[in-house]
């Protein structure tokens, strides 16, 4: 017999596992609390004030900050820029990464396949600011690699980051380069776990490449497609570092030329840290947050009807 502390009458015993469970959760809960939830709630709070971080004469203004924003053309411009960026980036990165993953799968058995796969993933692990600076040189209208190559073949040479038309596409090209590796790896994972016999059954059933892709592969990787679409939507609406570095950096003028790359996050940064309007920036962040949340919920709603979960 083993003697146990506590009597049998004690019916309010919390199982030991529960303690361990919450104990293990505690560190991450603390981190999220301190760095995400408390600042998040605080942000929502000050977006209803005229807030001054240097003194205590902050006044409650209700929806005043939002009224200011809605009457401000630059705010609308930044929203449009953000949407433009997301609307291009989400389908482009999803399709591009799926395409690359399909190609990589063909060579999955090759000896150097692992090397190629790592090379595709590599851009994603590089620091955005550092590689952006390299791409600044690639995009340089006079001395950059892109225009040298285009010039050699007598193609028209765009002004890239210096042109109001081309500045945003330039940022997108860099962002695709940086983000596609991650999504490719996700897709490749999904493709390699496709049941082999199902693909073989389709082959025996006479499915040609496109039919096989459309009717079997695409539906079976749809959970990952959904994940990639959600991740890239969030990522593109939050993009900041590459836009900041590529379009002006610390020397001012980020978001240029002529506000053509001023996205929401750039405007939030500038409002808060350049013009010290913290409550306005907070209001903008809140709007951006609600926008992302709404988009994600909408995507989830669509996905529940389209995605096939095994």
């Amino acid at each position: 017999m083993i003697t146990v502390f506590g009597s049998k009458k004690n019916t309010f015993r919390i199982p030991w596992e529960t303690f361990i469970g919450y104990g293990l959760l505690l560190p991450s809960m603390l981190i999220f609390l301190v760095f995400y939830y408390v600042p998040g709630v605080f942000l929502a709070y000050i977006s209803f004030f005229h807030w001054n971080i240097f003194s205590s004469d902050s006044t409650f203004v209700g929806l005043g900050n939002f009224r200011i924003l809605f009457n401000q053309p630059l705010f609308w411009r930044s929203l449009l820029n953000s949407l433009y960026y997301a609307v291009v980036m989400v389908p482009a990165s999803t399709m591009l990464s799926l395409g690359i993953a399909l190609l990589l799968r063909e060579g999955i058995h090759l000896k150097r396949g692992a090397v190629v796969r790592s090379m595709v993933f590599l851009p994603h692990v590089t620091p955005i600011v550092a590689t952006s600076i390299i791409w600044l040189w690639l995009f340089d209208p006079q001395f950059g690699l892109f225009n040298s190559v285009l010039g050699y073949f007598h193609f028209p040479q765009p002004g890239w980051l210096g042109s109001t038309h081309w500045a945003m596409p330039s940022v997108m090209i860099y962002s695709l380069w940086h983000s596609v590796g991650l999504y490719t790896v996700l897709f490749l994972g999904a493709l390699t776990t496709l049941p082999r016999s199902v693909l073989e059954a389709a082959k025996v059933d006479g499915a040609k490449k496109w039919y096989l892709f459309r009717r079997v592969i695409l539906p079976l990787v749809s959970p990952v497609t959904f994940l990639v679409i959600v991740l890239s939507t969030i990522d593109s609406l939050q993009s900041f570092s590459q836009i900041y570095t590529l379009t002006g950096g610390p020397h001012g003028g980020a978001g240029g030329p002529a506000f053509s790359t001023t996205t929401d996050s750039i405007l939030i940064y500038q409002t808060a840290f350049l013009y010290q309007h913290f409550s306005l920036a907070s209001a903008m962040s809140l709007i951006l947050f609600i926008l992302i949340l709404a988009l994600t919920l909408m995507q989830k709603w669509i996905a529940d009807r389209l995605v096939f979960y095994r």
Partner: protein
Amino acid sequence: MEALQFHHISKKFGAQSVLSDINFSVTQGEFLVVIGPSGCGKSTILRMIAGLEHPTEGSIKLGHRNAQDLTPGERNVGMVFQNYALYPHLNVYENLAFALKAARMPKFQIQNRIQKVAEIIELQGMLRKKPGELSGGQKQRVALGRALVREPYIFLLDEPLSNLDAILREKMRIDLRRIHDETQISTIYVTHDQVEAMTMADRILVMHNGKIHQIGTPEEIYNRPSTLFVARFFGSPAMNAAQIVLQIQNHQWIFSSLHHEQVISLDPKILSTYIQQENYPTELWIGFRPETVQEGIGMGISFNVTVTQMEKLGSRTHVHVKWGNDIFVYLLRHDDALPRIGDVIEISIPYSELHFFDKNQNRIELHKKEIKEINQSLRFEEENFSEAN
């Protein structure tokens, strides 16, 4: 007409040889069962017919078409995979329609075909269900239907019943054979289950280590196995086998065990064709099925054995006995008197039930005439013996 022919097919995966020099053919409407232990290359044969693997050497003919010139889709084979391989995101109807849609068949025709197949394999109630909602047996039927609905030139089944429970397996065995008899589609059925092979096949192809050991009707396979492997693969409990040596001492034939001191009395005439060859190896295998063993001295060969173990199975009992180091098994009916463990008894097997295999485990053919002669002379001796008393 030949529906399928394999000509000198070999297959290597890298340096590993999976199949070597495989030759066989299937006639139109035949049900051929390919059987062998895991890894013997039987699935590879099926996958080659479907076009999922390509032979390293040799050629495959589907009717009079060269299989090598055809993609898997063009071969018009209906294949049932071991794990069913249904399209998990499509419902049963869409699963059945998949190949027909890929072939751009008109919609009404697809509906007709599916209707017809759904009746044959009793799928009507579940056409709108997804594979995830079906039981193993239902999935199995859908996989069957998907292959049938194309009205394939040839039907390939890769261990289709191995994931089902015993009762369902028995039912599906009968259903499969019925479907074959109704449709008359040439069928190649891969299994490692000897009962499936014996009950369903027109002919059986036995494989071991990438080679064909025997092709024949179930009766031929069972009664005249061409190698010791085939002999021991079919039948449960497996055929008893022991290695023996032929020797001549004082102009007398002696048959003794290769591994121990025991001797058997055996009329050398039974092996006369073998003995007539020059330089025949003196080591050979003797085999007999458990159900042919009689207790006591009978007409034929007899062994002095010790009972070591008994397995009671209700309707019958498996008696394990030891002959030197060799273990034999024989059967007793439930109402037979059982020996006790440790008993030393005599068992005998009629000459007509003996099988002999040479050193390389290939069958040595005995002639009926010889066996008859021996039996007659034995009967004569017996009669003389009883008259003398």
